[in-house]
């Protein structure tokens, strides 16, 4: 599946499992957070990605970090 801060472009080119990333310059992180909080965020992103991988989806489906 695809983690990106530009999910609409991902839809246009036909990616089917899309998870909205944090930002263009840091899709799986956030420099404004403290180290510990950022680590938890990144863990949550990968967990959500795994959730999406085990879920049947329709075409070009976008998930948010928080369901």
């Amino acid at each position, binding site marked *: 599946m695809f983690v990106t801060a530009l999910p609409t472009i991902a839809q246009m080119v036909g990616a089917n499992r899309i998870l909205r990333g944090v930002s263009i310059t840091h899709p*799986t992180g956030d420099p404004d957070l403290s180290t510990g909080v950022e680590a938890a965020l990144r863990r949550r992103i990968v967990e959500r990605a795994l959730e999406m991988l085990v879920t049947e989806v329709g075409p070009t489906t976008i998930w948010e970090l928080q369901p």
Partner: protein
Amino acid sequence: MDGGARMTIIHYLNQFFAGLGGEEAAGHEPVKLDGPRGPGRAFAAAGAAPDVTLACGDDHFAEHEPEVLATLLAWLEELRPHVLICGPSFGSGRYGYACGVLAREAGRRGVAVVAAMTPDSPGVMAAEGAAYIVPTGSSVASMKAVLPSMARLAARLAEGETLGGPEEEGYLPRGLRVMVRAEHTGARRAIDQLLDKLAGDVRTEVGSTGDRVPPVPAVSDLHTVRLALVTEAGCVPQGNPDRLPTRHANVWLRYSIADADSLGAGAYESVHAGFDTTAGNDDPNRLVPLDAARALERDGAFGVLHDSFYTTSGVDTPVATAAKFGQEIAAELREAKVGAVILTGT
């Protein structure tokens, strides 16, 4: 449109071309500036001098699209332009996308739009046929050739002229399909086309508009799956030992992460030319989430993390090249019995 009244032309630029700054200004909020800026100064010669320039940072547009659009469209509503010119955005993905989205929304409100970008730019699809898009090369080297074309189309649209077809006028087909009379009936054309096809000459009057793949069935057992990390963020070992191009990448690369728990700041960097790499360089896990993936692997959340990650820099990459990379990487992953991939993009 009253004859004799001056046409109003608005020009949309990103932060760089409007002179607000480089990548560090990619988060700039939308602004309204008087007169032409940057490339807009060249439009006067063709009679399409912008009265107002609107500008916005590429990242800001992408990350705050609804609010930015609201602001820009409110200005368009106030200024009532005859024509909106967007770009040229060349090969830039984010800038092209912003131009395309603005074009689409302006088009829906009855504004004629001219833009310029590579045929592969996401902005072409985003525009949904609302703009006359002059095709460009991916770098600014084609600037000199493109500006007069843009200006001429804009000037004619501002006069209320109806433009001819794409080939004749030099713009990309807008994805519209208009009714025309063929010389022969569909029946006659069908027989001719079939006989030609049987003789080896295959042609079609219409093709599929997208390369669509149905969603792959979900992973049935996460606990046994081999998971791979792939990225187009241009993440490479420090120093870029294999010289991954920063744009127009013609290769993808694979690096071992067999014993690694994390992508360390000194050990890895991003060479992607399309975004501000500061945050990614300070912590490359922000581009390829190895540390979190490894921790989850240890905790048994999934089977096994594949021992390599795959990387390329997705800047000005033609769609056909990207598709080829995808097929090649997928072939290797399948060979290695990888069952799931997390792809990160910028």
